[in-house]
């Protein structure tokens, strides 16, 4: 199925890459492309499966762990206050590391340095639950990307976004800047705004991170996906967040 999908894409996208940036008044979340049923699923907290992870994240938030035997709540208190807007501005520049860290990376920094616990694996249930719970506190808030120190990483992300890669020799921009709104084997091609992550994807039957989504697109291009947490993913995340600056967060969203 996937194979035919992307072969069709390769044929359809034979035109040269123009890669014009999407004008701000034409930007749209993939939510706009979803069926009324899938939208209803996202809109109502008791039918949005992403909320199951949020509930679990809330429990983890209060649980003491690690050698320090401290919970996230011990230091950060009420997440509805302390974590408001935090997901909307990640990846954020980390002073000590001199580079951006995404939300999952940030949680692991607190796990290892503050709780003295082992880092959670990317895409593990715990990290997804905590990131869903934290991202939920940013729902409706505009994505923020104004830190000038992010600039070189945004540019690195942009060059990855516009570079041809994989056996299909495609760029991300060919689909998401030049052909959004078109159909790819019956599926609408979205603009690729990261407004809803982590999100529940019906195809995955689970919650997944933005990196998992990027990995999916890379495999679709028949490119070699990076390992989770790779600087290339962080750069792409930083770029797509910048590209979507000002758009409202929807986490945890639902996608087909």
């Amino acid at each position: 199925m996937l194979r035919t999908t992307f072969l069709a894409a390769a044929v359809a996208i034979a035109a040269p890459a123009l890669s014009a940036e999407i004008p701000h008044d034409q930007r749209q979340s993939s939510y706009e492309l979803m069926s009324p049923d899938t939208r209803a699923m996202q809109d109502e907290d008791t039918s949005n499966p992403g909320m199951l992870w949020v509930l679990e994240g809330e429990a983890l938030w209060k649980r003491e762990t690690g050698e320090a035997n401290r919970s996230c709540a011990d230091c950060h208190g009420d997440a509805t206050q302390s974590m408001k807007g935090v997901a909307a501005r990640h990846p954020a520049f980390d002073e000590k590391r001199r580079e951006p860290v995404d939300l999952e990376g940030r949680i692991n920094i607190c796990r290892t340095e503050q709780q003295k616990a082992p880092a959670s694996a990317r895409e593990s249930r715990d990290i997804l639950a905590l990131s869903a719970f934290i991202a939920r506190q940013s729902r409706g808030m505009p994505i923020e990307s104004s830190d000038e120190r992010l600039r070189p990483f945004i540019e690195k992300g942009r060059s990855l976004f516009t570079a041809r890669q994989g056996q299909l020799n495609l760029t991300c921009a060919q689909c998401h800047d030049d052909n959004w709104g078109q159909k790819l084997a019956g599926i609408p091609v979205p603009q690729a705004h990261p407004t809803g992550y982590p999100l529940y994807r019906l195809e995955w039957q689970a919650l997944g991170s933005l990196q998992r989504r990027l990995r999916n697109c890379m495999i679709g291009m028949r490119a070699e996906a990076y390992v989770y947490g790779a600087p290339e993913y962080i750069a792409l995340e930083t770029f797509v967040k910048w590209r979507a600056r000002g758009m409202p967060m929807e986490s945890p969203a639902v996608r087909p």
Partner: protein
Amino acid sequence: MTRALINVPSRARRGEIIAIKTLISHVMETGFRYTTAGERISRDIIHGFVATYNGEEIFRAELFPALSANPFITFHTVATESGTIEFRWTGDNGYAATESAKITVE
């Protein structure tokens, strides 16, 4: 760990038809899949769901491997009296989960 989301209106008029929605976290492993090493992944699904209204059964469903993970079950009932609606899911490997919601009928 099991997490469930229940949507029952907290108040209703007597005789009103109300919608009840339940969502529960579960992998719903079909038993038809294999690992990359060729070993069969054993079946692990929720196979039963029962709802009771002040102890009386009002809805029952049997679930099968074709169902997606995190099953969402919704049904309607008539609000007859104030009390508790209870939900019970049972499944493979001794799986059992219960949740309840209060409703005031006036």
